[in-house]
């Protein structure tokens, strides 16, 4: 009769890291579905590519580090990183873009920092920024929403574009660009227009906005919001970070909009355009790179919200989510250091 020795407690929740990660990935599905509906199958192809590369890269690194490969792959963190990067980049971007991005995210940003739990930067966002800086043309040519184009990117088109089966990549890519399959995102358009002296209202009359925040984009953001709310319900994430981001962004945008509605973007546009909801619920909530205490997370989230607003409004890049998240990542350790809860029995003046 062998008695098993173990330390207390002897029970634990059934919510494990791999389940948490799996749920995050599952909650992305509504967003991915809507995104595919409006922008074609490109996103799905990118997803497949990213996930495959991520798992292969993780396995290779684990082998090199002499670690247990299956245990690591099973934590599903690579799945989440790959998915986030895949939905963030333009659906028709060439294949090597996502491959480079995923490799960078997994090998450099995550594993070289010591693997899951030790990385300072959000891998998906670090990779996104790398790609944005290195390949700005490919990274900013977003597909036109399906409803706005006759040359909708069908399956064949998508594969041609991503894998560059026809002719050279460049020719095809720009061919697509010319025939209107790709175009700038609404935020991008607005920014360009504002810089050209148009007012917000004038710019908004363009078809891409379809009267509100941009055809397709509104619903994509809505879908990510729904996924996010499900995660909150499942206790996969806590509300602090997402809530702080949304609230800060809303407040900042409202102030700007109230002061000068013609030169500032409306709060609704801020919230439901670009990667706002994806960032608020799926990216910034990555626990590894965020602050850990509830108060710290509020500060962390508010920082991201503010940075998104500032970079979008005054910065050179149309969408600011990735930069905002990375900057906040850098601050997370400091936030954690300075925002500590008051332990039991340490009440001031007790």
């Amino acid at each position, binding site marked *: 009769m062998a008695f098993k020795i173990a330390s207390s407690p002897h029970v634990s929740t059934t919510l494990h890291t791999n389940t948490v990660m799996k749920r995050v990935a599952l909650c992305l599905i509504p967003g991915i579905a809507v995104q595919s509906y409006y922008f074609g199958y490109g996103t799905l192809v990118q997803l497949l590519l990213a996930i495959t590369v991520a798992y292969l890269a993780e396995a290779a690194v684990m082998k090199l580090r002499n670690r247990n490969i299956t245990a690591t792959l099973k934590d599903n963190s690579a799945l989440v990183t790959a998915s986030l990067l895949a939905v963030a980049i333009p659906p028709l971007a060439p294949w090597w873009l996502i491959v480079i991005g995923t490799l960078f995210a997994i090998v450099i940003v995550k594993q070289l920092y010591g693997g899951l739990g030790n990385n300072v930067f959000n891998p998906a966002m670090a990779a996104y920024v790398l790609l944005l800086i290195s390949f700005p043309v490919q990274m900013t040519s977003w597909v036109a929403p399906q409803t706005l184009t006759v040359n909708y990117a069908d399956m064949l088109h998508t594969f041609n574009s991503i894998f560059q089966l026809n002719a050279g990549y460049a020719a095809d890519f720009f061919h697509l660009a010319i025939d209107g399959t790709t175009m700038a995102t609404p935020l991008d358009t607005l920014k360009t227009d504002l810089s050209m002296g148009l007012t917000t209202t004038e710019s908004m009359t363009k078809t891409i906005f379809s009267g509100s925040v941009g055809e397709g984009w509104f619903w994509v953001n809505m879908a990510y919001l729904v996924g996010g709310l499900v995660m909150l319900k499942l206790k996969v994430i806590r509300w602090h970070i997402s809530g702080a981001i949304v609230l800060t962004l809303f407040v900042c945008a409202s102030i700007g909009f109230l002061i000068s509605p013609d030169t500032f973007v409306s709060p609704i546009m801020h919230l439901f355009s670009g990667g706002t909801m994806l960032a608020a619920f799926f990216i910034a909530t990555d626990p590894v790179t965020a602050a850990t205490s509830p108060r710290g997370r509020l500060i962390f989230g508010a920082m991201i919200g503010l940075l998104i607003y500032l970079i979008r409004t005054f910065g050179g890049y149309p969408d600011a989510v990735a930069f905002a998240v990375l900057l906040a990542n850098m601050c997370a350790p400091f936030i954690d250091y300075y925002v500590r809860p008051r332990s*039991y*029995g*340490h009440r001031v003046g007790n």
Partner: protein
Amino acid sequence: MLTLLEQLDKGTLWRSPGGIHPPELKSLSNQSTIASLPLQSRFVIPVPLVGQQATLSVKVGDSVLKGQPLTEGAGFIYLPVHAPTSGTVVAIEQHGSNHASSLPVLSCIIEADGLDTWCELTSSKIEQLSKADILAKIKQAGIAGMGGAAFPSHVKLNPASEIDLVIINGVECEPYISADDRLMREFSDEILTGISIIHHLLNPQRIIIAIEDNKPEAARAIESAIRRSSLPNDMIRVTVIPTKYPSGGEKQLIQIITGKEVPSGAIPAQLGIVVHNVGTAYAIQEAVLQGKPLIERVVTLTGESIGKPGNYWLRIGTTVEDALSQVSFQPESSQKVIVGGPMMGFALADLNVPILKGTNCLLTPSQAEIAPDPDEKACIRCGECAVACPALLLPQQLFWHAKAEEYDKAASFNLKDCIECGCCSYVCPSDIPLVEYYRVAKSALKNAAEEKLQAEQAKIRFETRLQRLEDEKNAREEKSKQAAAKRQANMKSGDKDAVAAAMARIAAKKAQAAEGITADPAATTPDTTTTKAAIDATSAKKTAVNAAIERAKAKKAALATQSQKDNQSDVATVTTDMPVDTIDRANDKKAQIAAAIARAKAKKAALASDSSATNDVDGVQTRDTVNEVNPAIEMDTTIAAIPVDDKKARIAAAVAKAKAKKLANSAKQEEL
């Protein structure tokens, strides 16, 4: 704003942070009444205090009666242990302990005779006993806190400060355990009697019996017992608190009931609060009224590997093995046997260990019930642990530092305030055994503190030794100094005589020169005294130096006196004369040169003294003299051992003397 008492009376509850809601699983064991098991034949009673605060009062081969104390001792926190049944002490040896470490402790092994005969018990009535008597009875009964910590109860019942609030802990928040639940349901009146004894001892303003809302039967039983009891009904109440782990923790319970936090490192009594377990109240009642020592307690035997789970009266000292064998225990392969609940209990390595006063549960889960420990994965910093921590710590930071063995840093995150409740480990999605890391860190810190203490003690020892040596040295030096002083004193007088003689000589010379002043009567003695001084000087260098210094001083003194007696030029004469006197004994050229210089200066000084103001010159002269005499003295010291009568020197000295006289004369004449 209501006062705290009013809020207590209303049953206001405060929020305690963190906490978890694990499956309760109490129904497995709380369905039937507390049962007794057949008397075992062998008991193991640990006597860990023997050798420190206690001595054994039995020896191998002695026969003992049920309830007979096995140890004797003094000391405030000493607690006796008793024989759980009548029988024979068959061994007193090291035996595996019922502790996470299972390190052996000294234990009495008692072989039961099956008669279970009580020793003589003295029952009494509360009214007849003084408080001290009651406390003594509680102590003699060996009553320790029965919630798990097993802290001597009489200590808690005899606090240094006033107690305003007594909380009777019937919370029993750990899953599976139902011993207190059953005890409250079945022995509510006895518990109330125990509480009235506590009331009598502490005289608090309020007594709150806290029970979790998952034990409504127990709460009802206690409430009706309160109505039956003699305690004033307006100062005692049952407060039902929401079920949450670890609400039964002392600090958490105080927070929930009063909203106060026990300051870190303090005890509840400092807030005027004490917490006692319901089981303790029951045992106090038995001890005080019937004189029964604590030899038996209710233990929950539960888990799916036990065929007849439930609550049982078990004698302290029953081995876990024996207890389990009575309740259809069917171990699985790699069966876990946990002492205590699933949250804070520890798994046993060996079942041949005794039930102790604080053992409230034996849990034998099947693998389906409690899965074998999964592998630890990477911390994803999800922060769930911090949300669950009732002590408001940052378990993830503690873990980070504990794992890196940066124990000081872990301590800076208030590791010592961790109550090891296990909430953090429970919620951790990465299955990190956080509490285990904290235990390691805590014991490492404890060891470090002990080492530091030892090092400090060693340092103190070392320093005392140094001090002692130093003192001895000082004492020796003091002695030799005294001796030297004595010698010096001897010599001083001689030296003074010498000076006096010299002065006398000078005076005589002066008298000759001036033809006015007669010789001093002291002039008759100089020869003998100077000789003596010289001999003394040869005997020891040191003494010589001292002597020289003394001489110098004497000269100075002489100067002063002389200057008072005579006029300025006289002083100059004396000073000039002194180096000459030194050279008398020297053959060194240098000395001669020095003497020559001194002479020259003296002359100059004398000349100056003539022309300039008296006071100023006096200062200059004194200084000059001292400066010049000093080198001469040094030389004197080095050669004093060999008194030489060198002709040259003598001649030189004679010449010098003559010159000095001349000088003095002229000075006098001028003066006159």
